[in-house]
């Protein structure tokens, strides 16, 4: 005997629920129920196992959490150590507070996206999959119970009718015959092509300015009424919004440095510039702390020129401070170089104050004396 497909159609969710219970009471398994909206308690009545999507979500979250730990460690500590705002770099734990937002976002991101993806795949809702809804009316206001039955169906038909089905249909299933689809999707390959084409076209932007949007909501947020910091300003000096400081003034706490950034200046600093701060343990200790934040990514913790960036081959040409390598440096020239930079090394004057630079110079000399 061939398999049969039985459909019972209902027009009310309460009647459907009692129908489901009646059928299940007779020991008959329901294969599927199609409803236009979620009917609470239906899964229980049908005897479905509770979803495990929550456990899946938890696992996805954990994966995202550890991914973020790895990501921040690799990007910010291991591969290319970054010094942002003078925070203690180079150990993940000390920088951890700033990574928490990333760990949080990654946890949520992985949970949400993987959960939605899992849900779609579990329900065969990925692009190109054929719809399986047997009756379009179930997307509107009808409810449908579906059974695949071996053998006699009259008993089932009677139960369905009794419990209030407005329509009961029985069909033979012929093996080759595909399910009667109420909508036909293009074949998988076609849909993939369409998606790729869409993506490709969207990337072909022209150099022409975009068309004006039809309407602008809250234009003040797009077009600042005030002048932007670096925009032109007809009222400003030199027609610029940003002003240069008044001649002859310096910012608070700033100590001017007169020696120019030239070869002669370098020689001058090397020969004649002497540290004005006391050379004591306290200053050296502070200098070491700052050195370990600002300099070790290139120069290495011993000053041997083997910082992480050098080891990872991101940055080359960093000399060791050893006298054999740099015979001619003094505390003055070190200060000069920190202030102005030299060739590939950038200026640190904007990050380190005058006395901080002197303290670091002290530490560099100490490292130099320890290097062979």
């Amino acid at each position: 005997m061939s398999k049969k497909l039985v459909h019972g159609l209902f027009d009310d969710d309460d009647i459907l629920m009692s129908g489901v219970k009646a059928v299940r009471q007779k020991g008959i398994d329901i294969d599927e129920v199609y409803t236009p909206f979620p009917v609470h308690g239906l899964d229980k009545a049908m005897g479905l196992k509770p979803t495990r999507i929550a456990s899946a979500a938890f696992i996805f979250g954990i994966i995202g959490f550890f991914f973020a730990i790895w990501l921040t460690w690799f990007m910010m500590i291991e591969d290319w150590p970054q010094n942002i705002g003078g925070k203690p770099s180079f150990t993940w734990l000390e920088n951890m507070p700033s990574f928490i937002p990333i760990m949080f976002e990654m946890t949520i991101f992985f949970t949400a996206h993987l959960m939605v993806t899992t849900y779609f795949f579990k329900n065969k809702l990925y692009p190109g999959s054929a719809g399986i809804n047997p009756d379009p009316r179930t997307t509107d206001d009808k409810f449908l119970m579906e059974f695949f039955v071996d053998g006699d169906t009259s008993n089932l038909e009677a139960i369905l009718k009794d419990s209030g089905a407005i329509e009961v249909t029985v069909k033979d299933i012929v093996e080759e015959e595909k399910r009667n689809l109420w909508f036909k999707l293009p074949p998988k390959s076609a849909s993939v092509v369409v998606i790729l084409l869409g993506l490709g076209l969207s990337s072909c932007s022209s150099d022409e300015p975009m068309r004006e949007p039809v309407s602008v909501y809250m234009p003040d947020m797009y077009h600042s009424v005030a002048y932007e910091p670096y925009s032109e300003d007809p009222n400003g000096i030199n027609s610029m919004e940003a002003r240069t400081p008044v001649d002859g003034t310096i910012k608070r706490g700033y100590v001017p440095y007169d020696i120019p950034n030239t070869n002669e200046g370098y020689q001058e600093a090397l020969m004649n510039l002497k540290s004005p701060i006391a050379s004591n343990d306290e200053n050296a200790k502070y200098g070491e702390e700052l050195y370990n934040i600002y300099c070790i990514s290139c120069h290495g913790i011993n000053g041997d020129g083997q910082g992480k960036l050098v080891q990872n081959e991101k940055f080359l040409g960093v000399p060791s401070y050893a006298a054999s390598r740099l015979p001619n440096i003094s505390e003055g020239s070190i200060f000069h170089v920190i202030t102005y930079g030299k060739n590939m090394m950038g200026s640190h004057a904007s990050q380190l104050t005058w006395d901080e630079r002197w303290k670091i110079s002290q530490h560099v000399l100490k490292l130099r004396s320890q290097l062979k």
Partner: protein
Amino acid sequence: MYIFSQKLKTLSFVLMAVGILSLAFGFITTPSTVEDVNNQMEHVDADHSEDSDSHETAVKINDHHDEAHAEHVLTQLKNRPWSALYVSALFFLFIALGTLFFMAIQYIGQAGWSVVLLRVMEAMSTYLIPGGLIVFLILLAGGLHFHHIFHWMDASLIDPNSPNFDPIIEGKSGYLNVPFFLLRAVVYLGGWIGALLLIKKYSIEQENAEVGNNIAYNKAFKVSAIFMVFFGVTSSTGSWDWVMSVDPHWFSTLFGWYVFSGMFVSALAMMVLVVVYLKTKGYLQTVNHSHIHDLGKFMFGFSIFWTYLWFSQFVLYWYANIPEEVTYYIARFADYKVAFWTMVVMNFVFPLIVLMDSGKKSYYPYMVVTGVVLIIGHYMDLFIMIMPGSVGSHWYFGVVEIGTFLGFLGLFIFCTANNLSKRSLIAKGHPMLKESEHYHYYNIEHEDH
């Protein structure tokens, strides 16, 4: 009808007695003169030199203890019993206030599920009256210079001719001055208690109204809505006044929400304890696992919200490292480090792990344990908000702190139980009572705990 059992009555009186005795003990053992302080400190130094075996250090430390320092220590020591009293008083006031907020939300949201809990909320928030009075008296005592929890109240700080002159506090004196401070306290407490009394009154009117007559319910809705606007402002300004001004140099713009989130979580936790207690005594038959489950969801969500605010403040300070801001955490890390991190674990890690699972939130014993931990955790949070500013490093968690906490717990129990016994336990006549009785969250299966 709930009957306030003799046993519980005795318990609440015993707790209150413990509170009063420990407070008295705290005041008696506080040194009253600078000499006492010096004696005490020498004592400590003597102990110190004995085990370090170096007489020199002891001498050095003694030199350090000059007159000004000893006086400062004396102020802090004198503040200690007052601060212990204040933290507990404020904590329980916040529980009542958080409950009132929650109740108002139920009316504004026209929530159906929570109707069976309304009378419990009404009883719990009635503690606002005695609790508010006590807090007000403590603030008044500060204004009369009985204690120096709010050291900005010292008039010499805003006197330009005084050596103590403090321009920052002077700049804030338009807001932080004793008369205005007390006036605000009256306004806050008056507004909250007024809303509470009105909501309670309408709740009874609704109970006695004919079926289908919802005028009283609608009035409660309106009062709740107005209260919510009032609360939105006063919960923030109240936390500036009563908590943040203990560190008067420092300010934080999210402080109001931070205090609020802690108060709300403690209120929910206390609500769970009260409801489960009543259920174990056979009352509140219509409250089911789904109601507790909902309270659990709120507890979970707002614990995370608390963490969010805590972290938002912490990480910005850590990152920017601006001196006038980080002092707040420096004070807390210097002397309260262990307590501080324990508190963060109790209020964040613990509820995160324990309350994540959906099903578990409906088990009574489970929720009771969680509630107790959260209440202690948020008490510690408030403790660490107040103490660094008032007693500095001279804190410990001893007789006075535990005693006053128990004392206020006793008062809270008495007030709540007494109120519960005065009216029916279920807000009969509420238009959505039926919905609440049939409230069922879909995945809660178990019958018993």
